[in-house]
């Protein structure tokens, strides 16, 4: 790709160095802690399954029973229970679901227990390896059949069986990526609901069974259309690692996973989120999942023109945290959005400048570009034009993952025909300008080039300020998204646990070894 903006490489390098320095103390903190959901995700990857009659998942029951021992890691205790009782794993899980507490069993040979935990992990990792191999084989088989950028559509009925119908229709319309929006309350639940669900508000519960049902449906369409259909769900919230584990086991392809989204936009405790995001991202990395980060949220909360630098700054931080969790650039779907006020003169040119800037700074990353939402009104006709200006900019700047805008945004969850219109018009624009950027250069002193340079400059200044103050302090001072979050405030703080010297986690060891992160 030839540069059109001539962004100074030394400034980009400076921003990356600042991001590394900003994240370093946070990563140090992360290493010294675990959380209830990190331990539950560990149990899930040891194969712990099932739920109590009133719906409490077995991983929660185990972690709750071992609440005062989490600093040692639960893996040894769970494996110890298998050794002490001599039960098959499924039988032990069934008894736990019925009320048996493994905390009542004394620890036998801890080393032997950890070895058994390692063997259990190996079984589930083999399943993830097979998922990854299957995905690669299918993507190879249907190479060149997906759109560029990938067209991403959302379904959100609340009922997984209804979602399946809409998802299949959307994939037949031309979608490459199907995301099932979650029910509004789920990000604040400190457990993952169990089984297939048919009730939700504004979306559908993310459960492992729902993942499996959707996977099967999308695979059917894949074979019919001879096009790989990417399945997406949301890791963000209080259960990031567990949802990442479920996604790995059921072969999801993308997951929303932002290092700070939960802190800023869901008021989840910052320590908790930082620890959770790393473990969840290691699982995403291992399972070949592309993460989608949530920078678009900065622009729906703050002004998209004035606060453009917060998006770029967050992209650098998300990239740094992603590297630290073993993700490769091709797995980093860094987010941004087309959210400028439509009344700004040359606003579309500024959007073009920023989208091209993101492309040039993150050349290997499948950037996730979000459509206008904040300034969409009930005027569906103008809204459709705004969506197509977004389509134009996205194609022209080579974005990777393109969330299709809906002309009825801000009115209702999309009708089937809304998605149809979105796909039809996007394909028209994208097909019609396929080679545009090979044909066009920007004036070196023009408005577009100047805008990109300004945003990069401002980003470096901002990151310098964050480095000086410290990331956690910066969040406390509302430097991100104009939202202040105290260190020990927010939801889920009580689920944070310091690791003891004796902490052991065979799942984490395996992930770190495989991802080249071992110390």
């Amino acid at each position, binding site marked *: 790709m030839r540069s059109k903006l001539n962004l100074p490489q030394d400034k980009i390098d400076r921003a990356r160095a600042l991001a590394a320095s900003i994240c370093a103390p946070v990563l140090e903190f992360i290493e010294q802690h675990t959380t209830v959901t990190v331990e539950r995700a560990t149990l899930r990857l040891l194969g712990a399954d099932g739920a109590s009659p009133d719906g409490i998942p077995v991983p929660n029951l185990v972690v709750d029973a071992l609440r005062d021992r989490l600093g040692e890691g639960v893996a040894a205790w769970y494996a110890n229970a298998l050794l002490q009782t001599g039960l098959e794993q499924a039988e032990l899980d069934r008894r736990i679901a019925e009320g048996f507490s493994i905390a009542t069993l004394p620890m036998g040979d801890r080393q032997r227990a950890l070895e058994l935990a390692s063997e259990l992990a190996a079984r589930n990792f083999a399943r993830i390896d097979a998922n990854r191999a299957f995905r690669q084989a299918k993507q190879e088989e249907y190479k060149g059949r997906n759109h560029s950028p990938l067209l991403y559509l959302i379904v959100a009925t*609340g009922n997984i069986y209804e979602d399946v119908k809409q998802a299949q*229709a959307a994939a*037949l*319309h031309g979608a490459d990526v199907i995301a099932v929006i979650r029910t*509004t*309350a789920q*990000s*604040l639940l400190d457990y993952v609901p169990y089984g297939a669900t048919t009730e939700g*508000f*504004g979306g559908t519960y993310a459960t492992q069974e729902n993942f499996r049902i959707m996977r099967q449906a999308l695979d059917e369409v894949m074979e019919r259309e001879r096009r790989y259909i990417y399945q997406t769900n949301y890791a963000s919230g209080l259960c990031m690692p567990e949802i990442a584990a479920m996604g790995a086991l059921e072969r999801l392809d993308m997951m929303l996973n932002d290092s700070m989204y939960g802190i800023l936009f*869901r*008021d989840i405790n910052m320590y908790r989120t930082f620890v959770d995001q790393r473990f969840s991202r290691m699982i995403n990395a291992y399972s070949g999942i592309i993460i989608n980060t949530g920078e678009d949220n900065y622009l*729906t*909360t*703050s*002004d998209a023109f004035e606060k453009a630098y917060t998006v770029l700054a967050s992209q650098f931080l998300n990239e740094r945290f992603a590297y630290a969790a073993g993700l490769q650039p091709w797995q980093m779907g860094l987010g941004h959005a087309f959210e400028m*006020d439509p*009344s700004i003169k040359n606003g579309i040119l500024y959007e073009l400048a920023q989208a091209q800037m993101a492309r040039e700074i993150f050349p290997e990353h499948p950037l996730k570009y979000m459509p206008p*939402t*904040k*300034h969409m*009104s*009930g005027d569906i006709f103008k809204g459709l034009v705004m969506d197509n200006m977004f389509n134009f900019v996205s194609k022209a700047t080579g974005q990777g993952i393109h969330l299709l805008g809906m002309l009825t945004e*801000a*009115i209702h*969850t999309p*009708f*089937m*025909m809304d998605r*149809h*219109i979105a796909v*039809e018009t996007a394909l028209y624009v994208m097909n019609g300008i396929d080679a545009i950027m090979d044909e066009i250069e920007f004036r070196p002193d023009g408005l577009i080039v100047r805008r990109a340079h300004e945003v990069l400059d401002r980003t470096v200044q901002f990151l310098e300020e964050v480095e000086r103050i410290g990331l956690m302090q910066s969040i406390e001072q509302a430097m991100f998204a*104009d*939202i202040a979050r105290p260190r020990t405030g927010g939801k889920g703080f009580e689920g944070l646990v310091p690791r003891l010297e004796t902490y052991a986690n065979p799942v984490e060891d395996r992930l770190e070894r495989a991802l080249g992160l071992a110390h």
Partner: protein
Amino acid sequence: MATIIRPYGDTMNDGKVQLSFTLPVPCGSRGMEAARRLVHAWGFHECEVVHAAPMSEEFTFFVVYAATHHGIDWDTVEGDRDDSEKSMTMDEINAFIKEKIGRKVVVVGACTGFDAHTVGIDAIMNMKGYNHHYGLERYEMIEAHNLGAQVPNQKLIEYACAHNADAILVSQVVTQKESHIHTLTEFIELLEAQGLRGRFICIAGGPRITNKLAAKLGFDAGFGRGTYAEDVATFIVRRMTAS
């Protein structure tokens, strides 16, 4: 004499409308005829199916133009609120508060229940506002507290009490399965159970909220699409000085 109104295409009283919809039928001449007859059955005439596109094997998207004879008497129509009551501007509101109230007006707002959307409450309250209409935080004579989204109703009430609020704004964006009605009803019930209803001016807001709906649920006012901070502020200060 009654003033009968009908849609206007290019000639007075031609009654022309544009419709688009989906039918669960395959695309083809039979599907197009089905669309035409359906629109006819709704009471339209001159039905013209101008576009039919398959969305899958079983679903077709239609665009139809048609005309209606039906009209209604304009003189009998009542709006959700009195359109002749114009809202004041931010400067007028600040001056009004200084003169008639003589202290800062305290407004507390949140998107309550499980609804995670701050877009509505932010448009009214945040400094920046929306569409070049500044939000309440910008008003010199208003002390605005925006608690954000997913705030429990009870927490909002407690906060309003602790800060001696004059008005409480409750935003609801998600309306699936009527969740907004449940949340708004619960809010008023909580206030009444604690004997606090009379203490605050209560305002509901959101894309599906109307003044009539809000009044029915026990609020003092409701504001829907197209509302700006000055509309809400004008209502609050007029109500505070009304008695």
